[in-house]
């Protein structure tokens, strides 16, 4: 079995008003050194595969078909055997 940890964020070219709002709030808390914040989504997927390559393919297909909107989002993932 494999565990994939998937991170989905807006493409850098897309304005991220949530990240901006959070950054401003942190500045109000005196965390002035925070120069940028990106808010995204985090998914954990358990995959019933024996083979890492097959498991990775499922992660990629799931991203393409549902989890990620390719117009505006980008993703990366870590995967390990569990």
């Amino acid at each position: 079995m494999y565990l994939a940890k998937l991170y989905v964020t807006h493409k850098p070219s897309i304005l991220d008003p949530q990240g901006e709002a959070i950054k401003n709030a942190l500045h109000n808390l005196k965390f002035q050194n925070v120069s940028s914040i990106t808010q995204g989504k985090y998914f954990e997927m358990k995959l019933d595969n024996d083979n890492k390559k097959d498991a990775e393919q499922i992660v990629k297909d799931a991203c393409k078909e549902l989890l990620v909107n390719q117009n505006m989002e980008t993703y990366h993932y870590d995967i390990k055997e569990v």
Partner: protein
Amino acid sequence: MNFAVVTFPGSNCDNDLYYAVKDALGENCTMVSSNEDSLDKYNVILIPGGFSFGDYLRSGAIANLAPIMKSIKQAANDGKIIVGICNGFQILTESNLLPGSLIKNNNMQFVSAWEKINVQNNNSVFTNQYQKEESINLPVAHGEGHYYCDQKTLKELKANKQIIFTYKDNPNGSVDDIAGITNKQGNILGMMPHPERAVEKILGSKDGLRLFQSILKSHVRS
């Protein structure tokens, strides 16, 4: 003429649309559940606003996988008239029936207000009862109505006259003030403003009614 209003779990403008078609326009209208799998009986398919499937994951993303979507895609290919309003617009972009995406409003606020909308193209099946560049009053109510597309798509939208409606005072940060677009073929419209909430004087404006009348007129002509 037979209109269908597709209702997803979490749709909340379905009754307004039904009322607009049935009572204000005076045509046949049927509510069709998103669990059904045929739209053969209908000439026009309306996808209402609301929060389909709770807007989980992304607005419209889960709705795109509902059983009815196969028939909607089929109807789109067959050239039937399809209109997605608000959440319906989000469903149409998530299903790639319309280009681009709708993302969070620039100011992070849910905006519920009357907006002045410019009719950019009155030569569509949705707008032939408006004057070119006419300014109309329609309400908007959305948190994720900021229309985004890349420069290449924007160029195509302009070249094909797919930008149908724009905002006079952009309330959400949409590129080029876009409030509504069609697909390249011109049979699918997605828009954030709510024409169904502006179909009689008592509602504050009748400007939305002419959108439905335009569809009717196009149908009679064809």
